[in-house]
């Protein structure tokens, strides 16, 4: 029995290998389907699949069906790197839809770049991602813009003079946003009274919040993910901190209100898109998404949807399926009518688009204002 087990362990490596049908265009996608930020990976994946199903239903591209190969990176950088290499060399994908977290994208993008395979990140907002090379694109705005949005909103709309920051030091997305907000807020005459941090996965924030309470700020900027923000809001109210809380697109999920309940109500966060928009494309997208997944799409699902659509549009326009051709077409994307607003890619291949400010009001997301770059 023992030797059988050991033999089984050794034979497994030979299992890998795959089949490639002829009349298909294969697009690769890697996302965190397990691990700490699995929820973002799952919603992006849903958005992408919805987009590709629509395109295939309408006859696919250049007469061919689009098949999607999705690999899981378990929220780890090395996994993202090996998944991307596998997609390129094993599944021979024509292009890659990257994941959400900037850390993963920075590990995977250089590999796509070195193999000359176009890489489109739906939601990594860290500026360094697209520095990997000319094959790397993104369809969301970058941290410097998103941080500016909230700094502007805080000082102009909420008339906040003294702000505190509580950042998630484990995620560069959060650190990036916090730094930009701090700089922009000070430029507008505001004062940062406290800048404390926590780590994704923590559940107790009373120490930091008590410290912030002693500096009595007018508002607190918490650019973290909704998984922690819900608890932070509750504990802030428990400590008597009644000031408004602000955040970034990491807040966007139904579970934010489920966890935070009335403690999170009335607070603001910047986001890519709003479900309240009257734009027919958006209402159509929401209807189809609900029909397929019976849940309302969050920003990441919308971004996944747009990223897939933009990529396929580029493939449609491209003369052939070579990486270079698709890359050139992608770079020419101008005023693409995306669900997350008009998307055009600038010279560093980042998306220049407006952001919206949302107020949490129970389960729905109240649209407050749009801030354009």
């Amino acid at each position, binding site marked *: *029995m*023992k030797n059988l*087990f*050991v033999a089984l*362990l*050794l034979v*497994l*490596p*030979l*299992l*890998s*290998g*795959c089949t490639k049908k002829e009349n298909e265009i294969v697009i690769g996608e890697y996302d965190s*389907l*397990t691990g700490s930020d699995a929820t973002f990976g799952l919603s992006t994946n849903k958005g992408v699949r919805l987009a590709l199903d629509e395109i295939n239903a309408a006859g696919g591209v250049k007469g061919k069906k689009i098949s999607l*190969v999705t*690999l*899981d990176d*378990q929220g*780890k*950088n*090395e996994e993202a*790197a*090996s998944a991307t*290499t*596998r997609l*390129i*060399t*094993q599944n021979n994908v024509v292009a890659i839809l990257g994941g959400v977290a*900037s*850390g993963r994208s*920075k*590990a995977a993008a*250089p590999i796509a770049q070195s*193999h000359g395979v176009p890489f489109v990140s739906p939601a990594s907002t*860290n500026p*360094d991602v697209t*520095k*990997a090379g000319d094959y790397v694109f993104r369809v969301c705005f970058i941290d410097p813009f998103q941080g500016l949005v909230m700094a502007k909103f805080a000082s102009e709309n909420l008339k906040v003079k003294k702000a505190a920051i509580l950042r998630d*030091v*484990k*995620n*560069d997305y959060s*650190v*990036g946003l916090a730094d930009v907000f701090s700089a922009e807020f000070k430029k507008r005459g505001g004062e940062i009274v406290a800048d404390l941090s926590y780590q994704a996965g923590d559940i107790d924030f009373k120490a930091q919040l008590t410290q912030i309470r002693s500096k009595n700020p007018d508002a607190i900027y918490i650019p973290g993910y909704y998984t922690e923000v819900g608890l932070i809001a509750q504990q802030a109210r428990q400590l008597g901190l009644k000031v408004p809380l602000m955040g970034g697109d990491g807040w966007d999920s139904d579970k934010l209100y489920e966890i935070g309940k009335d403690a999170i109500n009335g607070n603001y966060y910047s986001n890519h898109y709003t479900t309240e928009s009257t734009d027919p494309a958006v209402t159509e997208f929401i209807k189809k998404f609900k029909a397929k997944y019976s849940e309302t799409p969050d920003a990441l699902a919308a971004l996944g949807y747009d990223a897939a659509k933009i990529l396929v549009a580029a493939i449609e326009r491209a003369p052939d399926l070579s990486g270079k051709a698709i890359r050139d077409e992608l770079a020419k994307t101008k005023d693409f009518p995306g669900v997350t607003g008009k998307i055009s890619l600038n010279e560093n291949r980042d998306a220049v688009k407006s952001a919206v400010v949302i107020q949490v009001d129970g389960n729905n997301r109240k649209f407050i204002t749009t801030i354009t770059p």
Partner: protein
Amino acid sequence: MKAFKNPALALLGLCLLGVALNFSVNAYIQLILLFAGVNCLLSMSLNLVNGYTGQFSLGHAGFMAIGAYFSAYASTRWSFAPSSLLVVQYFVFTLGAGLVAAVAGFLVGLPSLRLKGDYLAIVTLGFGEIIRVALLNMDFVGGPRGLSGIPGFGSFLWSFAFASLWIVICFFTIWRVMHSSHGRGFLSVREDEIAAEAMGINTTRMKVKAFVLSSFFAGVAGALFAHFTNFINPSSFTFLQSVNAVIMVVLGGMGSMTGSIVAAIIITVLPEALRPLQELTGVDLRMVIYSLSLVLMMILRPKGLFGDMELSDVWRKYVRRSA
């Protein structure tokens, strides 16, 4: 020098293998092989502490992180050699990474080596976490953003040759140390510390020596890892990474060099080999299967694949007998 005969032969063999692999396998498998090389260094070096000296370290990822960050910082900031001699420059930085990690191993080893078993495991785990959190807070190495744009070797051939060079250096260093009086000193500490001390062995110095040598090669493994992935951030050096190294040593067989190498290759390849399963079932069961096989392994074959035998003994015992 006769001393360089068999290491040179081993290196040549590996390089030939590298050339063969360069043309026969695609980039995905090549990347996995490079990671397997890094893991071989990790498991051989940890085998020195957990396997030969019987001290239980759970902080190996910390030293790997130090090595990775040193060589990443060095090769992105300073570069003295002209582009043709780039490999020499990487060798020097990797050596530096090892030395820095060795110093860290000394600083960690000294206070904690009075402790035994579980307590030593916890303290080394603590140091690993402290190193990770410290890196998270050091902005000049990018903090959570990590360090990107670390120059690689350009071609798989160079990377594989560089990794093989270090694997050969590590293998022969540890093999020769273990076949000398110093090596026997490590073994005596594992067998019976009190008797060893009574027979004149300075057990504390032995443990620190094993710790320093092992963290040197962990630093080297870190440097290779940095060059192969071109991007590192603190979250790739967590407690799970140290556990992975320990599993390789235990799976390979405590105190068996070749066992650690074989186990390192299996543990690198296994998750990737299971990936098609994930494409079929749509659900990622890799880690579930990996952890389950771990538990079964410990029950069915507690001594590990090779026990404390080397490949040569296994060959003689199993294969020769059946022939």
